[in-house]
């Protein structure tokens, strides 16, 4: 008798578990399927296509590592312009922008709440203005004729005689792009760091001073950063992604892909160039894979620095 009821109960429990599983599955289904179709599959496809020749019209044909070999041995634009540009840009805008946003967040945490809110809003605003706005503003500021704000300012001071073509000259374009990207890089990573700093338990600082910490610099190194590692890591990931997502900046400023003399050509522009202008999808996919590996390497470094080992 007991056995029977136990079997019966087991069945019921199983049935309940079963319907629980279905519910969980249904809850996850919408997000999961969209994630799968528009994020995971494209990444997997990029890897697959990178080993093929594909011109959109004919079926992709397998070519092995040819695209990668071409990329690192024969693509002069990639080797001479795109790769050095991307590394310079990513290192300054990524880690540079990140350090800057930590520093600003830390200073903001030292002032009173109301001015802090106003100042952070002003600093955050550039990150949400969007591509069109960025283009409009900075084209006006760095315009190559004497009506450009910077040119008119420099000429007014008598520092230069003729206007500098900032956006057309390969000497200036990359630096202008880096400057603008830094300007607009105080995004949610920056906000995360502000609240991270504000939420550190005050007793930690007290204890640290008892233990012999002497100045505010030591305070940052020994207390602030270690206590907000999770936010530091989130901020780092956001900074890296932001640096690579800003790839449109050169094209927006100069009005065309490729940028003049490839001076502002970043790896994302190179992908677009081959993918949507030349329709060499296989080759473009290989470049994308290189880009994804770069992003991944950067974030590995961030995890090694701030990840919590368990």
């Amino acid at each position, binding site marked *: 008798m007991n056995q029977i009821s136990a079997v019966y109960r087991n069945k019921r429990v199983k049935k309940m578990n079963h319907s629980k599983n279905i519910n969980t599955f249904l*809850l996850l289904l919408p997000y999961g399927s969209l994630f799968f179709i528009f994020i995971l599959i494209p990444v997997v*496809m990029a890897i697959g296509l990178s080993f093929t020749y594909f011109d959109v019209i004919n079926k992709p044909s397998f070519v092995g590592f040819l695209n990668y070999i071409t990329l690192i041995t024969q693509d002069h634009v990639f080797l001479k312009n795109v790769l050095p540009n991307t590394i310079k840009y990513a290192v300054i805008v990524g880690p540079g922008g990140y350090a800057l946003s930590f520093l600003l967040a830390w200073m903001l945490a030292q002032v009173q709440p109301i001015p802090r809110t106003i100042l952070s809003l002003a600093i955050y605003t550039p990150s949400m203005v969007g591509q069109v706005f960025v283009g409009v503003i900075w084209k006006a500021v760095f315009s190559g004729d004497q009506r450009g704000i910077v040119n008119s300012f420099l000429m007014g001071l008598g520092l230069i005689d003729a206007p500098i073509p900032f956006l057309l000259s390969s000497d200036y374009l990359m630096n202008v792009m880096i400057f603008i990207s830094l300007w607009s890089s105080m995004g949610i990573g920056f906000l995360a760091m502000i609240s991270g700093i504000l939420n550190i338990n005050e007793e930690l600082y007290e204890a640290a001073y008892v233990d012999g910490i002497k100045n505010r610099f030591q305070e940052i190194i020994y207390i602030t950063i270690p206590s907000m590692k999770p936010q530091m890591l989130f901020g780092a990931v956001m900074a890296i992604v932001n640096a690579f997502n800003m790839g449109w900046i050169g094209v927006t400023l100069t009005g065309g892909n490729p940028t003049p003399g490839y001076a502002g050509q970043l790896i994302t522009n190179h992908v677009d160039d081959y993918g949507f202008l030349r329709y060499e999808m296989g080759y473009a996919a290989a470049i994308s894979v290189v880009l994804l590996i770069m992003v991944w390497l950067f974030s590995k470094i961030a995890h090694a620095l701030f990840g919590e080992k368990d």
Partner: protein
Amino acid sequence: MANFQGSKINPKSFSTSQLKFYFILVPLAIFMILPVVFIINQAFKPLGELFAFPPTLFVKDPTMENFRDLFGLSGITGVPMSRYLFNSFFIAITTVCLNLIITITGAYALSKKKFKLKGTLLNMNQMALMFVATAVSVPRYIVIVQTGLINSWFAHILPLIAMPVGLFLVKQFVDQIPDALIEAAVMDGANDWTIVRKVIIPLTKPALATSIVLTFQTVWNATEASNNFITSDAMRTLAFYLNSISTNNTIAASGMVAAAAVILFLPNLIIFIMMQSQVMNTMTHSGIK
């Protein structure tokens, strides 16, 4: 102990030791916001002031002319500006609503349910935080073509609904809800849908607000779909249209382009200011471990 005068973080009152920070922060904040102020002024300048030399920052004699010109312009395509405005609002609102629903249910399942692949899925989503959409624009295009979504509203909306950052932030918030609360709801006979509505949504409001802000900014400024997935002009978005005006801008149109930039920027700003305190609240739980 002698050195410690209380932490200087998050001070309630003013002291002269803060002056050095104001001394750096205030000029910097002004510098950051100045270009934005300049464009907003530019949008209201009459023709004469736009071409003044040397250029001026503030408008003296504001006019709505640039906005009138912008709305009057239907360009080579024959599609009026109001159509693009409608498209953008429709796409943004739909995407934000759908994103909200799937983010809540997804975050609830990933935080409170137990199942086999949970760890893997969470790791995948964490990896996807560093997803750079432009890197895979080619395969995304192929997916859109293969699924037959090309040139449809879905091509705008579907690729942007699943936002790994949004899910991540909301999930961090759901993690804070005690399991006991959900068990109690189950005891009272609540099903998953009721739990989501009565427990999860009210307790994760700040994270949801943040997700709305981030999704809206992404969709509203997006030009990928209009560039690559849409072939008919009447289906494209405001961001795309204004971007094309501004890249082909002749100098004469600079006031109009500024007006366009302001129209694009304002919704972002308004939504962010409305949700600002919620966003900051969410960021407290934004850490990656």
